[in-house]
């Protein structure tokens, strides 16, 4: 069964075509600058050179049409006809409280995604555009929505509520939702498989640390708490996002610096985190390099980053009253051995013992980086949200 996975931004489409017989990737790519006459498609077929096409693409429909043409083209084609694509898995950022799992897209589902726009004004509208475009271009296929928030719908009420007047929850659905759910779910499944232990018996803390970062406590295969909240701004210090701060700072800064709401939002989302503290960059590699070159601001940024990460892991160990597995994933989690080492160094009290040599090895494989005698398994598991979306889609199509 061939499944197309798409992830739409306001002016972009990321796509990957899977052959689910062996879960291989037939082609993948990215359409950028949709809405302009200089749109770019980067199309990759494994073991072939990347193909770059530019031209006018005015909307998502046209963009997807071009992608399908590439998938079926003579020289780079991997399928004969569009009908071969049996299903399309759509990444949808916010499912609100409507969805605790992936669903086949019906008009009711679209309605519910639309109702959630207020909670994800930047993400859900382009996700809907993608659904429209794909349903239009691939009317024969089954379309499935996979939500970033769905995995966290198992959080208990005391974990997802904010200590604010409860009426705000009833009126505006203000609560914690969490994000990166597809990734947290994927790595927890992989962790159990890697360790050959039943997921239901494991207490897992999974750290998805990339540009955005979140930690999830997973017990019995279910998310019981996660660090991102109503929006992806809560929780850890990130590349350019501040994460948890005293909320009273917001009105104070607005008054002192005479900022507008848009400015203070932009400050917290795009000018804070590693970038804001180091004054250099939001990219962990660049900040690490600066630290090694003696930059004190870069050192402070990394000290804070590690400290906040460690504290949050400790909190989630407390939330589950224990931990069996600590998982690192996403850009920083998979590649920054220094960050992993420094975080784990402060968690030996819980029986987390890192194997420094294994930790320092660079690899794209799933691997254990804890010592043989460590009470807690520490794993690095490269995330694969697209594959997870494809699997969820396949499962729904088969039960359809």
């Amino acid at each position, binding site marked *: 069964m061939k499944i197309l996975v798409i992830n739409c931004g306001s002016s972009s489409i990321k796509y990957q075509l899977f052959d689910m017989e062996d879960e291989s990737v037939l082609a993948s790519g990215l359409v950028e600058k949709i809405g*302009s*006459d200089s749109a770019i498609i980067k199309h990759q077929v494994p073991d072939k050179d990347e193909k770059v096409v530019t031209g006018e693409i005015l909307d998502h429909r046209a963009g997807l049409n071009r992608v399908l043409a590439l998938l079926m083209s003579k020289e780079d084609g991997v399928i004969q006809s569009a009908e071969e694509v049996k299903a399309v898995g759509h990444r949808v950022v916010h499912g609100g409280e409507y969805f605790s799992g992936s669903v086949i897209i019906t008009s009711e589902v679209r309605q519910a995604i639309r109702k959630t726009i207020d909670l994800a004004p930047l993400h859900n509208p382009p996700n809907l555009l993608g659904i429209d475009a794909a349903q239009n271009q691939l009317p024969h296929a089954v379309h499935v929505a996979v939500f970033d928030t769905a995995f966290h719908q198992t959080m208990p009420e005391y974990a997802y509520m904010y200590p604010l007047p409860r009426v705000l929850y009833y009126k505006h659905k203000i609560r914690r939702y969490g994000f990166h759910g597809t990734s947290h779910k994927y790595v927890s499944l992989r962790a159990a498989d890697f360790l050959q232990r039943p997921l239901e018996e494991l207490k897992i803390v999974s750290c998805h640390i990339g540009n955005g970062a979140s930690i999830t406590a997973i017990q019995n295969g279910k998310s019981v708490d996660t660090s991102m909240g109503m929006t992806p701004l809560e929780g850890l210090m990130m590349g350019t996002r501040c994460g948890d701060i005293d909320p009273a700072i917001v009105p104070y800064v607005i008054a002192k*610096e005479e900022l*507008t709401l848009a*400015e*203070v939002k*932009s*400050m917290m989302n*795009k*000018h804070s985190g590693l970038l804001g503290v180091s004054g250099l960059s939001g990219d962990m590699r660049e900040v690490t390099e600066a630290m090694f070159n003696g930059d004190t601001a870069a050192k402070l940024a990394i000290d804070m980053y590690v400290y906040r990460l460690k504290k949050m892991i400790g909190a989630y160990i407390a939330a589950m009253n224990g931990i069996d597995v600590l998982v690192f994933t996403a850009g920083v989690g998979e590649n920054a051995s220094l960050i992993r080492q420094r975080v784990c160094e402060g968690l030996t009290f819980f029986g987390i013992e890192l194997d420094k040599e294994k930790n320092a090895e660079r690899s794209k494989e799933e691997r254990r980086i804890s010592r043989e005698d460590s009470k807690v398994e520490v794993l690095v598991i490269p995330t694969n949200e697209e594959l997870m979306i494809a699997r969820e889609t396949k499962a729904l199509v088969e039960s359809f």
Partner: protein
Amino acid sequence: MADIQHIVVIGGGTMGQGIAELTASKGFQTTLLEKSNELAQQAYHHIEVSLDKKLSKWGITPAEKKSTLSRLEVTIDREILRQADFVIESVYEDLETKKEVFDTCDQLCRPDVILASNTSTLSLTEIAAATRRPDKVIGLHFVHPVPKIPLVEVVRGLKTSQQTVDAVVNLLPQLELEGIEVYESPGFVTTRLIVLLINEALYTLMEGVASAEDIDRAMKIGYQFKAGPLEMADRFGLDSVLAAMERLFREFGDSKYRPAPLLKKMVRAGHLGVKTGEGFFRYDEDGDRIDQEEGRS
């Protein structure tokens, strides 16, 4: 009507700069058309300064500044109008000048292109009469400072078609603007109410009721204004306020619109507000107050 991608803003004064900055920052290819190279360069420079200010206030990132500027061009070549998908005129508030500009637009723009005017007090119907497409002429009255105030008055002239209104209303979300629909009337809602308030503040100052600083403080603290009426006047430009008052006075013929003598006096003295560094208060080159505490009275 074709998809709007390229917007031409005519006139690079305070409002024109703000409008061009807004359209470019929201992803539209934008060309600012001016009369002379010097004015065009000046406008470009001011937009850069405005973006730098936003950057320093964390409102945008360096990448966002760069991408906004990459979509912005200034020119003195009117032929650019042939490539426009949408035109916003923001030249000096004078009927003859505007009519000339609209006549030029009408000759050069594709027949389907909507021509919008940022006029605050002039008759849109009269401006539209200078073209052969009065149904496609509409008012878009922005509020200063344009990149910060998400409000625009969508003004129907007598002949503006519903299709044109719809097209403009559809464009607003892309510019992240809230629109209110108004019918042609001098000053519409915003200008009519605000210049009257400013004028009354001037009488209050003239009569020695309170100092300039205290008048502004009263309205800021008492009614949650971001800036008091006198600072607002300085920021709009006292000459623009005077022009608006005179226009309202002439159009309505009601003495309540009579410009305060102090306003005329200050304009004659060349104290026009922020743009000359001095009005009711004093300002540095970036337009920041430099006499925050003492204030003239």
